C-alpha cells in the first residue's frame, strides 16, 4: 500500500480510526486526497469496511486488480490443455477401430474441454483472489472487531510528525476511536 511514497521520512506508526458512517470516512479520505492533511498521501490509506464500497475508488483512485487476467489465462489453458490431452489419449487407444467413427472425436472433446475451461478458470480465479487480496497470510496491522459489525476503519501509515494532523482530521469528522501501533 505504501509503495509509492517517495519521501525520505520513515513511516513509524500505523493509525486506525473508526467511524460510525461511511460518509465520514469518505470525507476523511477526500481531505487526505486534497492534501488537507500534511504529509499523508492517499496511497498510504487503507479502508476497512464491513460491506463493499466500490464508490471509495472515487477518492482512493483506481487500484489494480488482476483477477480477470487469472480467469482468462486459466480458462484458456484449461481448454487447450484438455483438448490436447484427450486427443493424445485417444490417439493412443489400444483398440483403434471405433465402429466406423473417427478416433479423435472433435465434438465430444469440445464438450469436455469446455467443462475443463470452466473448472480451470474458476480455480485460477480463486488463485488470483487469494494472491490479490493477500489472504492466507499472517494478518498484520491494526484491526478492530467492530469493523465486521458496523464501523468503518481507516488505516494510515504515518511518520511521527504526521500523527497530530491526522488525528485532527479524524476528529473533525467525528471519529469514534483511534488506535495506534508502532511499525517495527
Amino acid at each position, binding site marked *: 500500500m505504501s509503495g509509492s511514497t517517495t519521501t525520505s521520512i520513515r513511516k513509524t506508526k500505523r493509525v486506525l480510526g473508526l467511524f460510525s458512517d461511511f460518509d465520514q470516512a469518505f470525507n476523511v479520505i477526500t481531505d487526505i486526497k486534497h492534501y488537507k492533511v500534511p504529509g499523508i498521501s492517499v496511497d498510504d490509506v487503507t479502508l476497512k469496511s464491513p460491506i463493499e464500497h466500490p464508490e471509495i475508488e472515487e477518492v482512493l483512485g483506481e*487500484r489494480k*486488480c488482476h483477477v480477470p487476467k487469472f480467469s482468462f489465462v486459466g480458462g484458456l489453458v484449461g481448454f487447450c490443455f484438455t483438448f490436447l490431452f484427450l486427443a493424445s489419449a485417444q490417439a493412443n*487407444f489400444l483398440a483403434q477401430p471405433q465402429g466406423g467413427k473417427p478416433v479423435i472425436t472433435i465434438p*465430444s472433446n469440445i464438450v469436455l474441454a469446455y467443462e475443463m475451461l*470452466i473448472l480451470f478458470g*474458476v480455480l485460477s480465479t480463486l488463485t488470483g*483472489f487469494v494472491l490479490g487480496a*493477500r489472504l492466507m497470510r499472517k494478518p498484520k496491522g491494526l484491526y478492530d472487531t467492530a469493523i465486521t459489525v*458496523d464501523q468503518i476503519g481507516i488505516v494510515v501509515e504515518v511518520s511521527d510528525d504526521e500523527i497530530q494532523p491526522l488525528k485532527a482530521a479524524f476528529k473533525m469528522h467525528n471519529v469514534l476511536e483511534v488506535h495506534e501501533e508502532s511499525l517495527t
Partner: protein
Amino acid sequence: MSEQEHLTHEQTRDIDENIAWAKINKDVLKSMENPRAGYWVALVGCMLLFSVMIFAEVWQYNYGMGDALLNTSHMWDLYISTFVFWIGMSHSGTLLSAILHLVHADWRKPIYRFAEAMTTFSLMTAGIFPVIHLGRVWNFYWVMPYMSDRGIWPNFRSPLIWDAFAITSYLTSSVLFLYIGMIPDLAICRDSATGWRKTLYTFMSLGWRGDDAQWRNFRFTYLMIACFLIPLAVSVHSIVAMDFAMALMPGWHVTSFPPYFVAGALYSGCAAIISLFIALRYFFKFEEYMTMPILDKVCKLTFVIAMFWTYLNLIEFASVWYGHDVPAKEVLLAKAFGPYSPFFWSMVVFGSVLPFSLLSKCVRRNMKIMMTVSLLLNVGMFLERWMIVTPTLSLGYHPQAFNVMWPGWVEWAMVGGSFGWFGMLFLIFVKVFPCVSMYEVKEMVYHRKRHAEADEDAMIVLHTGVPGPKKSQETGGA
C-alpha cells in the same frame, strides 16, 4: 406467535431498511446456536433415512443389483431418474446467486446463501447415484482419466464421462462459489465466536479484514465466478439430458431435451427453495430476513419457470407426435395410456396445473399451503424424471423386450435415503455456517436506504425548490 402472524401479513417491503447492522449480526449468529426443536427432529429424521440407504447399499454391494428388480430391459430405472432429479435441484442455487447477481436483483441477498448450499448438497447427493448404480461400484474411479501403466483410458465419447467431468466441475465451482461468498461472513463469525468455532472460522476466513483491496478483489472474483457458473450450470444439465438424447431409444432421442431439462431443473430447484425457505424461516426465526415479499417474488419466478417448462414439455410431445416415428409415438402413447399413466397424469397435474395456484396472493402468503404446494411441485418433477426414464425402457424397439417393471425395495430405499443424506448435510451446514448472508443484507439495507433518501431529497427539491439535507447522519445505523 402473534407477532409472527403480524409480520406475515403486514410485511410489504423486502426488508426493513432501518434495521441496525449490529442486530443483523446478532440475529444470524444466534441462529447458529439455538434453533427450534423442529430442527433437531428434522436432523434425526434425515439421519435415520440415510441409514436406510446405507443398509440398502451394503445389501446391494453384497448381493448384486438384482434385488432392485432391474431387468434386461430396465437397466436404470429409479437410480438415474433420481440422479437427474437431484442434478436438477442444484440449478436454482446458481440461478439465484449468479444470474440474479448479474442483473442486480438485490432481493436475492437474504436467501441466496441457503440456495447456494442447496446447490452444493444436491450435487453431492446426485453424484452418489451414478456411482451406486454401477454393477461393480468398487471400480467407479475407472471413469477418471488418470495415467495408467497399461495405457488404458476411459471412453471420451460416452455421455457418462461428460457427466463425470461436468459434475466434477460443477461441484468444485459451486463449493468454491459458496465458500468465497461466505468469507466476509466467516470473518464476522470469527470475530464473535469462541471455542472450536473460533478455530474453524479463523482458519476458514483466510485472514479476511475487509480491506479495500480485499473487497475489490472479492468483487471481481465473485463476478468472474458467477460468469463462469451460469454457462456451467446450463451445460451440466444439457449434458445430463444428453445421457438420454445421445441414445437412440425412442422417447429419449429428442433434440429438445437439453433446454427442456434445464427448464425442469430450474423449476424443481425453485420449488425446493420455497420449501427450504419456509423450513429455515421457522427453524431459525428468520421472519425479518426471509420476508413475505421475497417469498412472493420467488413464487412468481417459480410460476414463470413452470410455464416455460410446460411449454417445452408440450413442444417435446408435439415434435414426437408430428415426427411420425412409430416407436417414439408408441412410447408417448404408452406414457399417457399405458401402465405408468397414473404417474404421468400426476406429473401433468402437479407440474403444469398446480403452479396456477401460485397466481393467488392468498396461497402465496400462507406458509402451510405454500409448503404443501412446493413439495407437490417437486413430487411432480420427480415423477417427470421417472416418466422420462422408465416408459422408454419398458417399450423401446424390440417387441421381445417389452415389459413393465416396478422398482424393488432396494431402489426405493436408495431414493428415500438420498433425501435423508441431502437433508442431513443441509441441516448441519445451516447450523455451522451463517445461512443468511450478513454482509449482503447490510449492503441491501444500506443501498435501499440511500435510494429512499435520494428519492426523498428529489421530492423535496421538486416541491420546494430547495435542496434537502444531503445525506442522513444515521446511515449505516450503530
